């Protein structure tokens, strides 16, 4: 030691600073120090890490959450630093105390790290150290420790002898029956995971009753978590067992009085469908799905509506068309005219996906009227969603069927009073143009695209120029030369400087045009007071447009207060009765 200390001063110093900063008053410094905990441990060596550093860390649970979070994360990868798997159990005390703090993210991270290091325990160590920890947490006074315990059963269960297994099952059972809803929620959330590691006989005899009990808990928040467990448990069981053990609970959940539980079923419907298998789906889930589509709560209907396509896709292919036609489509028709716009827009985003499944005739006969209704919907979101998914229909029936109805819808969206709506429709313009063809586009849509270039909102103008680029890519240079360029050039002589600026944006974005216009741009300036534009080569080789203002600057008189002072503004406003807001951002 003496020999090493003589040369150790320099190398010890940074570590000494790190250790001192573990208890610095500044949170940021403490956090940095905790993040370098492995460096400290390495310098201390495995022996001192075990005997000094870890006891210190076990007691530091008074710290800020972010420090504790970093600590919990660090400890998960500490095995080598305490001397390898043989000593891994000495990481348990600090993680145990972290698993009882009130902050959920810290607790979850501690549990995650505990799960990681559980794998590094040898089987005897697991039984000697890890299992007692799980039991301690599970019977802790505070629910924070009991909730943390729920996530630890599945990692140790399979590696312990049968007698211990029985105890663990009993402990988990107690957690499922805990007094506080938080613990029951944690148990319900981990039920599926625990079920997967359990022997099938115990699953049936012990977990299923727990599952049934949690699924009929008095707290909505517990019942809805049982729906998730439903998926994992159904995956583990045979079909007839699913029918007998899981379906009663699921049927009950579909008809639960609380909309949050029904929402959860709707949300997990596709997973449930896959877990339960085609037979029961046909018999039970189809009517359930119908019910959920007619649910009285809009949230549930919206969630169900967004699952229509996936649900239909996952139906067994034989008889699928018939099920959709007789059971699903009537409800879909009702949803199209739903009172809630979220429901309609959720449906609009997936309804087009039904047409490949139904084939051309049925699409024309049944779906087309629905698309047309939605295209005329008062809510722009719904119309947009339909337009954005046109490609699915295009494959089945060709877009011509729709084009006559599409046009008014597009025009209306293009002129919508909300600029976000205008912005959204621009995004779909290249897609539409590609599907409708160049003639239709020239005839009907070109003028709209040009109108956007002079929109009064910057974001729309910007998107419009990008749109031109995409259109040029789609229709080719020749088309651009004939249709776009004349109009863009015409704009460059517009007295409104914003329009001239848009011209520049167009040039900037449109590489195809740029090559043709680099010279032209200098020619087209025609305003009497215009500064020269210079193309400066950028480092990566492309060109940057710059405006040479040197002459303007030379003759400009400086105004000492170009922007009115805040005090002056307030003074002016003082006596006024009306005050309006103005936006200075992005509009100049």
């Amino acid at each position, binding site marked *: 030691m003496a020999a090493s200390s003589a040369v150790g*001063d320099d190398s010890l110093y940074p570590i000494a600073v790190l250790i001192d900063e573990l208890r610095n008053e500044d949170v940021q410094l403490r956090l940095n120090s905790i993040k370098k905990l492995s460096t400290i441990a390495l310098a201390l060596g495995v022996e001192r890490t075990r005997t*000094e550093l870890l*006891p210190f860390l076990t007691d530091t649970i008074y710290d800020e959450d972010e420090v504790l979070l970093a600590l919990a994360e660090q400890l998960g990868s500490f095995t080598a630093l305490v001397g390898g798997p043989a000593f891994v159990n000495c990481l348990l005390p600090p993680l145990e105390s972290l698993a009882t703090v009130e902050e959920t993210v810290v607790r979850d991270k501690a549990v995650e790290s505990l799960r990681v290091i559980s794998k590094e325990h040898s089987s005897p160590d697991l039984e000697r150290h890890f299992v007692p920890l799980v039991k301690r947490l599970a019977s802790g006074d505070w629910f*924070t420790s009991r909730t943390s315990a729920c996530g630890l059963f599945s990692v140790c269960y399979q590696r312990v002898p049968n007698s211990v297994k029985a105890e663990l099952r009993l402990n988990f059972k107690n957690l499922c029956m805990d007094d506080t809803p938080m613990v029951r929620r944690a148990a319900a959330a981990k039920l599926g995971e625990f079920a997967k590691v359990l022997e099938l006989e115990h699953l049936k005899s012990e977990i299923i009753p727990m599952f049934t009990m949690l699924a009929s808990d008095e707290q909505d*928040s517990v019942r809805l978590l049982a729906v998730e467990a439903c998926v994992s448990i159904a995956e583990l069981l045979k079909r007839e067992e699913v029918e007998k053990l899981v379906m009663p609970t699921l049927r009950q959940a579909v008809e639960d009085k609380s909309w949050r539980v029904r929402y959860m079923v709707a949300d997990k419907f596709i997973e449930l469908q896959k877990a339960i298998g085609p037979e029961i789906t046909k018999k039970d889930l189809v009517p359930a799905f119908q019910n959920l589509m007619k649910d009285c709560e809009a949230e549930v209907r919206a969630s169900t509506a967004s699952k229509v396509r996936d649900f239909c896709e996952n139906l067994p292919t034989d008889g699928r068309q018939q099920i959709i036609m007789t059971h699903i489509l009537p409800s879909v028709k009702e949803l199209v005219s739903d009172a809630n716009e979220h429901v309609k827009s959720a449906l609009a985003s997936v309804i087009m996906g039904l047409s490949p499944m139904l084939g051309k005739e049925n699409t024309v006969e049944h779906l087309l009227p629905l698309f047309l209704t939605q295209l005329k919907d008062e809510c722009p979101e719904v119309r947009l969603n339909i337009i954005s998914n046109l490609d699915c229909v295009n494959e089945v029936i060709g877009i011509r069927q729709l084009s006559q109805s599409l046009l008014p819808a597009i025009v209306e969206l293009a002129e919508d009073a909300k600029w976000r709506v205008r912005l959204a429709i621009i995004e779909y313009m290249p897609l539409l143009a590609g599907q409708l063809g160049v003639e239709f586009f020239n005839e009907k849509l070109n003028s709209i695209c040009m109108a956007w270039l002079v929109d009064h909102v910057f974001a729309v103008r910007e998107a419009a120029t990008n749109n031109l680029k995409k259109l040029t890519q789609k229709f080719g240079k020749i088309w651009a030369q004939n249709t776009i360029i004349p109009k863009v050039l015409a704009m460059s002589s517009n007295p409104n400087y914003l329009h001239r600026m848009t011209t520049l944006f167009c040039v900037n974005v449109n590489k195809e045009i740029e090559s043709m216009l680099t010279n032209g741009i200098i020619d087209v300036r025609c305003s009497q007071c215009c500064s020269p534009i210079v193309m400066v080569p950028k480092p990566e080789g492309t060109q940057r447009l710059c405006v040479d203002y040197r002459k303007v600057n030379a003759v400009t008189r400086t105004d000492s207060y170009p922007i009115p002072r805040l005090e002056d503004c307030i003074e002016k406003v003082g006596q006024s009765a009306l005050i309006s807001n103005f936006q200075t951002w992005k509009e100049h």
Partner: protein
Amino acid sequence: MAGVGSGGNDIQWCFSQVKGAIDDDVAEDFLYGKVVYQKITNMEVKILDFGSHGLLQGFKWISKLMYWMNKLWLLVPWKVPVLLVLLVKGEMIEKPNKQNKSQPHCRGEYNVYSTFQSHEPEFDYLKSLEIEEKINKIRWLPQQNAAQFLLSTNDKTIKLWKISERDKRPEGYNLKEEDGRYRDPATVTTLKVPVFKPMDLMVEASPRRIFANAHTYHINSISVNSDYETYLSADDLRINLWHLEITDRSFNIVDIKPANMEELTEVITAAEFHPNQCNTFVYSSSKGTIRLCDMRAAALCDKHAKLFEEPEDPSNRSFFSEIISSISDVKFNHSGRYMMTRDYLSVKIWDLNMESRPVETYQVHEYLRSKLCSLYENDCIFDKFECCWNGCDSVVMTGSYNNFFRMFDRNTKRDITLEASRENSKPRAILKPRRVCSGGKRKKDEISVDSLDFNKKILHTAWHPKENIIAVATTNNLYIFQDKVN
């Protein structure tokens, strides 16, 4: 002597403790007892330790009281001029031998556990509104670990506080002495890991979450759901639902704001979650109605499931009818079967299964009906009295004027008026029942209505959930009374 007690046995109430100033004009920095200042996270926290007759000075207005579960914690925010939340902890010595009921209870005193400022004065720049540093409501959260958690709210902002104890601190630096002097780095030859050493118990309060910017109007209630995961906050026109861990989002579940504010006829005065049904809550209105909503049915609870309303007695109708029917407090009983509402003159108990009228009505100070005109003039008619249940729901208690508070026994239908005053604040002094003369000739021990002091009012009362211990807040004192045990 008539008393009101639980389980049919009459109780004699006796004085136990008083906290607060004796006179209003005592110097504010006058303090008995040991005061320890501890600087913690930019906030001055005082830990006050009082002897048996220690008095706390400088805090004028006691605004909220509450017992949490069976723990002897008492939460008291002081309103003006310094706003401090005071957590008083009493040590209770449980009788070791429960069979021997005649053995007297040994009860500890409530001592100040921690004080801290919960809300600072704020300014809403968008609306040019000053936000006062007062506390409108406080609520305990279920205990999750060794620390205590509570929600407190002013007009606009709700905060979640953690009150925790610390009895260890780290010791040992590598590069400096414990007093901060730096060591010469050259002398550092070995690394030292800090060690935790025991220290004097320190109580710290830290804000854990701040739920802001969700209310346009003044928040009047907060209530924690029985799922321990969500809580509601109500202002004059809206009720929002929050998740305790999410501060940037809340769901509006009730909105009674009319499209045109001129059509506004009523406001929300109080709201509370059912004690064990997680999807049921009630809210009361300034018109005297209580609406019960079921969150299972829909995400928005604009449509109530039940409307509790008593038809007005036409003979009592007057200019003040609507003002005095406004409900100032609504409380569920412990089982959740009944709820109690307090309007200006009465306490009503409703069965959740009967909407048409209350099952019980108790007149708190009916003698004031003839005085409503002058009470309107001095604004007292807008006072918001709270009410509370006793541990087994057999007695209800609420405050009145002249530092009187009233108890009503639901089984025996007897009632009693008691007074919280300095006169009988001798230890274990038995409280004498008071009577107010209600018309006719005044009897010897009666007090005439005209001599009542309307500036002395008891708005807040609390009853220990298990024991017969009550806490009563007067304008500048907190009184604690307990039943007389032989």
